[in-house]
């Protein structure tokens, strides 16, 4: 047993009844092993919980639905059957029809595609802009960092929806305009994360040596910064994805996203809402789909956070 009178070990041992607490993880600045191995090994000590698993299943089903939509035995979502407007559920139309007689079920399934398309666009834009942004701010330091971070602050304080409306109004309504804008607006968040992952590494001994040997900053970024940053970036991205789904729906609701008559949960809600009393289901069902989608993604994010981020 180590000597009880040395200060450091005293602090460690002295917890008395709370000896079960693990030693706090020290800042790990040693070069990281391969990213995949690190992810597998890394654990905040918690397993992927039950609720996140449910979310994963739901998300998987939705994803499957959107990918398989063209081959599923459902009606054409654009086909209007005016004789059957606002019909309730029936064997042929499992979820009924909307105000112009289109099959709700197929519109929901195809709406899935738009939703995920929107999310994918947003995520791509966010990462494509945010990662280089953060890396640049971290590596080039000083003036570059200052300017980039000021812009980040300004962007972060903007209400995303308003800015998206502003940009879309100039460029014209389309899902790519809307979602790329939203992705760009969310990029500063990711940039911040990357920047704080770069800073501790930037001045580390092994980095200075590597650079003096001619290793490029890009290589250092890929090999040492990104693996460390991956966990929080993944968690942030998933959380953003959940938000993107809702924003896409909101913009489409306002007529600034997916142009009609394409299926989109948000746009369908907008047209259905005006006829609420005639067909309440047409408003409620798309909203449920949006809630389900957003919720499943966000609990997946919570589960990932518990697993990946060391407490």
């Amino acid at each position, binding site marked *: 047993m180590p000597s009880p009178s040395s200060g450091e070990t005293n602090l460690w041992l002295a917890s008395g009844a709370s000896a079960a607490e693990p030693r706090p993880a020290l800042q790990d600045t040693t070069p990281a092993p391969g990213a995949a191995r690190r992810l597998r090994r890394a654990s905040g000590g918690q397993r992927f919980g039950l609720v996140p698993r449910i979310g994963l299943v739901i998300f998987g089903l939705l994803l499957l639905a959107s990918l398989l939509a063209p081959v599923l035995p459902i009606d054409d979502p654009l086909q209007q059957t005016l004789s059957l407007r606002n019909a309730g559920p029936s064997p042929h139309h499992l979820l009924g029809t909307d105000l112009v007689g289109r099959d709700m079920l197929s519109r929901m399934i195809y709406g899935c595609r738009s939703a995920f398309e929107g999310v994918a666009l947003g995520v791509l834009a966010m990462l494509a802009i945010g990662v280089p942004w953060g890396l640049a701010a971290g590596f080039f330091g000083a003036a570059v960092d200052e300017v980039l971070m000021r812009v980040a602050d300004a962007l972060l304080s*903007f*209400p995303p*929806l308003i*800015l998206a409306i502003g940009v879309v109004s*100039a460029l014209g309504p389309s899902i790519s305009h809307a979602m790329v804008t939203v992705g760009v607006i969310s990029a500063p968040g990711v940039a911040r994360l990357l920047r704080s992952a770069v800073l501790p590494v930037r001045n580390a001994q092994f980095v200075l040596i590597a650079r003096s040997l001619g290793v490029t900053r890009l290589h250092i970024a890929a090999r040492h910064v990104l693996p460390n940053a991956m966990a929080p970036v993944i968690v942030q991205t998933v959380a953003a994805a959940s938000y993107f789904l809702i924003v896409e729906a909101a913009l489409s*609701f306002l007529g600034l996203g997916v142009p009609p008559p394409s299926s989109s949960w948000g746009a369908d809600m907008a047209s259905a809402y005006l006829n*609420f009393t005639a067909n309440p289901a047409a408003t*409620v069902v*798309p909203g449920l789909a949006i809630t389900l989608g957003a919720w499943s993604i*966000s609990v997946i994010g919570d589960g990932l956070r518990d697993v990946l981020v060391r407490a």
Partner: protein
Amino acid sequence: MGRIVLRRLATSIPTIIVSTILVFVLRYLLPGGPVQAMLGGGTGQYTPQQIAAIEARLGLNAPVLVQYWHWITGVLHGNLGTSYYSQQPVTTVIAPRVIPSLELIVGALVVSTIVGGGLGILAAVNRGRPAGRTIQLGTGLGLSIPDFWLAAVAAGVLGLTLNIFPAVGFTPISESLSGNLDTLILPVLVLSVVTGSFLARHVSSAMASALDSPYIKSAWAMGLPPRKIYLNCALRNAVAPVITFIPLAFTALVGGTVLVENIYAIPGLGTEIVSSVSNEDYPIVQAIVLLVGVLVVVLNLLADIALAFFDPRIRNAISE
């Protein structure tokens, strides 16, 4: 304290400037340039020389920086441009619409702070017990629901079907106070659900970690009455997240207000910006975006100052 205010101001001003630049840049995204937009689809009838002349008259062929300068000085003098659609000064168009939107936002902020804050405290005090767990579940749900869906369903069910509250329309406060409140209740409540849930979670985790801290343990050990412990000790530490929350909530509420105003047909800035988009009336869109952006930075500034006021540790850290 004064030093802190000055320092915060100093860091906020560049942010505001960058925001204005961002908004200004929006103009240049317009396909075909600003003139095209201003003239609507009717540019076909103008010869290129005439278009160039218009551009010169509007100062649009000066260097970008000069144009920015003209614009920003104009803004600071209260000149936000002229609406393409109605040919009226933007300020005249926007001014009457500010109050309804403000009513919504401030109302939602107040309700979500009080209800959300209260729920958060209850959740922290009742950690692990059924009451606390119910609140956690409820707030989780509240966070996931899209606000415009809730707005639509609430309007449809409570307004149109059950006729408890008016689903659409707005009675200005100048006409009738009770009528005003009547038309506001549904939209404010709907807006408060999401922000309230968010705040409840925020406060609950801040208060829970405050309750776990050593000084609370000492307070119990010294026999302080529970009410005092919760109110005096823990609550003071929960004030900080609430203050930080308000600018964040404002940011979120602005987006929500746009949607809610459109659903409930409230004549505020939200409906204005959407109709301006469909009318391709860019000066108005630009002005509203600018207004909101600057307001958020100002709110952040005020929140930071308030935070320094409440927490002596921050005060000391800053003055070093």
